């Protein structure tokens, strides 16, 4: 069914050679436009409004007032080119509009035309152009070919954040009724059902009961998956993919075993049965706010003392970086614990204190590498020390498996490549983009497979896990190669008896 060819891997793990330029190569790769049924429940116009140019320019003006960073990012680029070959989508497709600077210029040119003196006076000579239908089409196409992973901003000497520009562009497009189906359909479901998947409470309860039965069969231990338990110590907020997909659910089983063995009482919430917050992908602070406040409500209703997040990249960015602004203050929680905590920092702390024991031999058949997820790596931290988002997952892996190998240093930690499916692009009509955008990660993975006999790659984000499950086979690797971080913990943890 696919009409594109998977890129050939060339053993160029750091992607040192930029691809030949291929103008408009990805111009036809478009995500579906949202329908009224996806837009209207979010308060956006159902379809493109008549006076869309004027509305869009007015919205841009409003965003420039609201976010000083946006104006600065649009003003300060000196076209040095440092970012040009740093985007996985450019490296995988060769389409020059996928160079971060060119992507920014799609919005910058319109900004100059309507909001700067030189742009108003000199037009095209000052890199300015009016907003017309062709420009809108370019915006829609290429701002939905940015996964908002922020790798380019690591290399920009001014720290220009293309993600923020792409969020602004999407917010403008939603305002004129030109939203993206994938994100807006998911957001509609969060409000209606409580999670991105559309998993109603009875189905969630049934799924969790099934997991409890499985664990008794597999381990002989009654590990629980509590739902809506008032007075539990920990409220676990995790992506709904953890209830549904592979290998996500193996991570969820790992969290449950950790809580069980450490004797920490915990619960999931059917009201906030989703960690993800797609409000960020579409740049809507109103959506982010509403979605984050489901978590506050659940914490209050259940009377929990601690807030813990499962393996979800952008949810962790929203939680770690914005939760207090969006849904705080959290003064009703136990002040002895940070708000929020990541499940990985809890597990590692328990291991270090001897409260749980991991047996590496359980994973003796694996040699493991780690894909740092972009939102964990570049937009947040884990634990209480700088760089904890890199050291904590690695320490937890090393405690769980006998052999861990890092990929090429230019492709990990804060320089990690996006999986190719983040930022609201994990939708099948963008498969060509997703497969080609994964190429840089696949190059680095191939190197450690070939040289170090790596058998598995750990991910700690629901999107990364689904994306790799889908794209690994395009590169002739088995989908089972991607595993959850807590899947390793799950296999290694010793249950029952003395720890």
């Amino acid at each position, binding site marked *: *069914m696919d009409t594109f060819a998977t890129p050939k891997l060339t053993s160029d793990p750091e992607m040192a050679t930029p691809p030949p330029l291929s103008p408009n190569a990805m111009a036809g790769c478009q995500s*579906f436009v949202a329908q009224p049924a996806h837009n209207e429940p979010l308060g956006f116009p159902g379809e493109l409004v008549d006076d869309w140019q004027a509305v869009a320019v007015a919205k841009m003006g409003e965003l420039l007032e609201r976010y000083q960073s946006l104006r600065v990012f649009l003003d300060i680029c000196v076209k040095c080119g440092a970012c040009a070959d740093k985007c996985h989508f450019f490296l995988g497709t060769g389409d020059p509009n996928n160079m971060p600077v060119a992507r920014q210029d799609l919005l910058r040119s319109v900004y100059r035309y309507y909001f700067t003196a030189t742009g108003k006076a000199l037009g095209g000579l000052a890199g300015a152009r009016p907003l017309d239908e062709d420009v809108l089409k370019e915006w829609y196409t290429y701002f939905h070919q940015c996964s908002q992973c922020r790798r380019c901003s690591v290399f920009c000497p001014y720290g220009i954040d293309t993600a923020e520009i792409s969020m602004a562009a999407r917010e403008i497009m939603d305002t004129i009724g030109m939203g993206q*189906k*994938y994100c807006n*359909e*998911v957001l509609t*479901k969060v409000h209606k059902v409580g*999670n*991105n*998947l*559309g*998993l*109603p409470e*009875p*189905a969630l309860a*049934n*799924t969790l009961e*099934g*997991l409890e039965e*499985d664990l008794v069969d597999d381990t002989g231990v009654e590990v629980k998956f509590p739902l809506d338990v008032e007075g539990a110590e920990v409220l676990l907020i995790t*992506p*709904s*993919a953890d*209830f*549904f*997909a*592979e290998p*996500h*659910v193996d991570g969820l089983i790992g969290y449950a075993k950790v809580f069980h063995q450490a004797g920490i009482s915990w619960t999931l919430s059917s009201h906030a049965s*989703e960690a*993800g917050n797609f409000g960020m992908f579409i740049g809507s602070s109103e959506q982010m706010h509403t979605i984050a406040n489901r978590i506050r409500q659940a914490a209050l209703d259940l009377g929990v003392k601690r807030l813990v997040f499962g393996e*979800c990249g952008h949810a962790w960015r929203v939680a770690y970086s914005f939760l207090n602004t969006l849904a705080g203050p959290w003064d009703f929680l136990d002040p002895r614990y940070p708000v929020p905590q990541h499940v990985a920092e809890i597990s590692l702390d328990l291991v270090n204190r001897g409260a749980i024991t991991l047996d590496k031999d359980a994973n003796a058949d694996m040699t493991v590498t780690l894909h740092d997820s972009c939102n964990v790596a570049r937009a947040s931290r884990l634990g209480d020390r700088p760089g904890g988002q890199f050291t904590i997952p690695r320490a937890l892996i090393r405690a769980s498996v006998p052999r861990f190998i890092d990929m090429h240093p230019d492709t990990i930690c804060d320089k990690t490549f996006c999986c190719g499916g983040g930022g609201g692009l*994990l939708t*099948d*009509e963008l498969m060509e983009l997703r497969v080609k955008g994964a190429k840089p990660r696949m190059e680095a993975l191939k190197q450690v497979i070939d040289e170090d006999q790596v058998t598995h790659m750990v991910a700690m984000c*629901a*999107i990364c*896990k*689904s994306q790799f499950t*889908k794209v690994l086979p395009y590169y002739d690797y088995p*989908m*089972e190669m991607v595993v959850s971080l807590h899947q390793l913990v799950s296999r290694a943890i010793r249950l029952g008896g003395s720890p």
Partner: protein
Amino acid sequence: MYELNGKTINHDEEGYIVNLDDWSEELADKIAKDEELDMTEEHWEVVKFLRDYYQEYQIAPAVRVLTKAVGKRLGQDKGSNKYLYELFPYGPAKQACKIAGLPKPTGCV
């Protein structure tokens, strides 16, 4: 639109039917054919389980719930994600749901 016995049936951009009541076994056969799949007895078992589960819970079953049910119905050796991908190469959740006339699972899956 799918055309079946002179009737037209609406579907979305990806071929998922819009009105779930439009589903029939004949339509499932037609969608499968478009996907270059021959419906065997095993395919039908999966499709039937998906439809039964959806009837009760208004959502497709989690992959693990599905593999367990398939294992029970078709034999333990077939109760795996790998076997389901052999049946439905574009994924048990998405491709099988399309043939079963159910909405596509959304989100980070």
